[in-house]
């Protein structure tokens, strides 16, 4: 990126989102003091590494390949400009001037020193941020649809409930030493932009036949070694009962999960072992008692109180509802990166952090600062992080889109590729991660470069490629239309192809094609697979649809035809 001369920063805008009261602020502050004491004890040897590890993980701190990595929570993907500027500041002051947006909508820094973490946490607390439970065997960051509060597709904004779940799960005394991690997502649309069915537990806002709003609860989804799609636990949980229900699910999981084999300790394994019916029976038993106890009941006035924080911004009226003409490049960007907003004259703008050649999901501190400026100037001070490692400006005026696009071009974040083949998800992989078997970022870069031509990208249409550097699947490869899994074959990086996965409402688990491809073969193999799609597709079919119609064989034959040489 050519460093643009920094314009004078606009007046900071505080978006409508949850704001800490004195209790929340004290909670986060005391948590920092608690962790600082744990660090002190570790450095003195009063805690061994084995004892300290779960404690630091529950404050987001990993020991990775090169250094410590700190994972900062971005609850339901929502950030204010003030928070974005603080993240930029932390990148500059404590790290190497960049951060990485993750597939759970958090932000990671890769070059952190243990001894700096208490100071970093204090700085985060200043802007109502934290790293609480972003790792460890506990309830993790609650994620939600990145278009929440802006789309007309939702029954209601899923974020108030997400915030309530966040508070309920924070240092929940019964659930801080679970068998494994526990990930929760919340949705409120038919369209699933938060990959609900791949979560340990998911809550979807629904309306029953009487028109009453309540929650469908699913559980047992997950990626990793053994991917599963979630099962429905309850078609309809009444609003006031939801925390009692979620607590019931967590309790059954905590009590009944295996503890003897780390690869078999997610809730998906429990449900698959005992069966959905039995799981529902056990959950229901706990639920009836917890509900009767009454202490977890969620009154409508509390829901309303939290929802008020997320009230929509005051939308201007009388705006033009036509997106201005600003040239063919801009038009291309609008085609893919703009979604319909519920308010006339407004749009939802996706900033893909996927310009071909870039590290997917990364932003420098300079870019973060400029994005903060864009947030203030064009999007009521607000941005959303997506699980596809992109950003969303949720409330922009259509008439401002050309100016926004021009500014994104200066940032090198104007790739018109949301949902296209170059909008690739990739985990940090072997370049950074202690768990990885293979690098994923260079593979993403090589594929993106190969398909860089925009006409070709549009010809191909929607194609979600997801790359993981190991079986832990942080790159969500099981949910890729084309998934790529890095493996270690006798010390050499190899890449397996999977086809037909989806993390949307039409969720499916990708199917492994066969033996892996080498680092320099994989992009060509992907190209041969894509060519089969182009040759075989019927009108209106995405890659995923063609695969579902014709199956694996032709794709497989093409993929291996040159590799066999």
């Amino acid at each position, binding site marked *: 990126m050519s460093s643009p001369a920094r314009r004078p920063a606009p007046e900071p805008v505080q978006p409508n989102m949850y704001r800490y009261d004195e209790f929340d602020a004290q*909670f986060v502050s005391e948590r920092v*003091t608690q962790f600082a004491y744990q660090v002190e004890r570790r450095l003195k040897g009063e805690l061994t590494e084995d004892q300290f590890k779960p404690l630091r993980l529950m404050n987001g701190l990993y020991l990775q390949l090169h250094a410590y990595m700190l994972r900062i929570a971005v609850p339901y993907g929502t950030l204010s400009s003030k928070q974005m500027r603080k993240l930029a500041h932390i990148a500059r002051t404590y790290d190497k001037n960049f951060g990485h947006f993750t597939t759970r909508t958090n932000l990671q820094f890769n070059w952190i020193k243990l001894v700096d973490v208490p100071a970093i946490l204090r700085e985060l607390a200043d802007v109502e941020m934290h790293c609480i439970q972003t790792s460890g065997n506990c309830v993790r960051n609650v994620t939600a649809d990145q278009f929440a509060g802006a789309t007309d597709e939702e029954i209601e904004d899923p974020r108030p409930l997400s915030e309530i779940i966040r508070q309920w799960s924070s*240092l929940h*005394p019964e659930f801080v030493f679970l068998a494994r991690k526990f990930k929760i997502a919340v949705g409120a649309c038919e369209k699933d932009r938060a990959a609900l069915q791949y979560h340990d537990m998911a809550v979807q806002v629904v309306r029953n036949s009487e028109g009453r709003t309540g929650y469908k609860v699913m559980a047992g989804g997950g990626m990793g070694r053994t991917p599963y799609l979630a099962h429905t636990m309850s078609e309809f949980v009444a609003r006031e009962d939801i925390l009692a229900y979620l607590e019931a699910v967590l309790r059954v999981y905590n009590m009944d999960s295996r*503890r003897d084999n780390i690869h078999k300790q997610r809730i998906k394994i429990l449900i698959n072992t005992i069966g959905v019916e039995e799981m529902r029976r056990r959950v229901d038993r706990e639920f009836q008692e917890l509900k009767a106890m009454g202490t977890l009941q969620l009154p409508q006035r509390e829901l309303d109180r939290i929802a008020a924080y997320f009230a929509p911004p005051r939308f201007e009226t009388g705006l033009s509802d036509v997106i201005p003409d600003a040239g063919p490049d801009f038009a291309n960007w609008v085609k893919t990166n703009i979604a319909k907003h519920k308010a006339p004259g407004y749009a939802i703008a996706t900033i893909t952090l996927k310009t071909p050649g870039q590290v997917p999901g990364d932003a420098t501190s300079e870019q973060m600062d400029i994005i903060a400026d864009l947030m203030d100037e064009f999007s009521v001070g607000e941005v959303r992080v997506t699980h596809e490692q992109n950003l969303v400006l949720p409330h922009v005026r259509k008439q401002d889109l050309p100016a926004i696009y021009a500014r994104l071009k200066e940032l090198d974040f104007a790739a018109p590729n949301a949902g296209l083949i170059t909008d690739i998800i990739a985990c940090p992989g072997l370049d950074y991660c202690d768990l990885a078997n293979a690098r994923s970022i260079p593979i993403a870069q090589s594929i993106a470069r190969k398909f860089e031509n925009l006409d070709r990208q549009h010809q191909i249409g929607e194609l979600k490629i997801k790359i993981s550097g190991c079986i832990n699947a942080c790159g969500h490869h099981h949910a890729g239309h084309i998934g790529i899994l890095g493996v270690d074959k006798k010390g050499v990086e190899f890449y397996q192809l999977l086809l037909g996965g989806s993390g949307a409402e039409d969720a499916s688990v990708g199917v492994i094609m066969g033996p892996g491809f080498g680092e320099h073969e994989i992009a060509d193999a992907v190209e041969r697979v894509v060519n089969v799609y182009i040759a075989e597709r019927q009108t209106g079919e995405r890659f995923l649809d063609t695969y579902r119609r014709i199956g694996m064989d032709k794709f497989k034959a093409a993929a291996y035809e040159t590799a066999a040489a």
Partner: protein
Amino acid sequence: MSKLLKSGAFVEDAYAAVADDAALPEGAVLVSLPRFQKEREALLARNTALGIRLQSHENPEILGADLHHFALVALEFPKFRDGRAFSWARILRTRLGFKGEIRAVGDFLYDQMNYQHRVGFNAWEVPDHFTVEQFTKALTEMTNVYQPSSDGRKTIRELRASS
């Protein structure tokens, strides 16, 4: 070596922990579940307090109506990461209405004591060097809590409503 912390002070352990194959001494005894199941009649016939030590995979509901015979339930942490006992304590206090001593034994951390206290533990087997000050500190690191539990503390939501 260890000592017993109960309700915020160090106390003599009234119970003798008895191995499965050892003879029962006079006085209050703490036995395992298999031993209780094997010698139930004899143990219940004694005129002394009875304690049971449950392993992390043993749900207290197994005891059924016999639970009311015990004044002490010791819940074992085989490895501090095994957090099942947090649910066992909660169930003891809620569903099973147990009012006696729930004791944390085995491998657990200072950093877990607040959570243990919240879910209903009121006694801890701790190393000799452990102090009451440390216990107090463990319980007061976090002034407020978001969710209701067995310690009866007001949640942040309740405090907000009354402020």
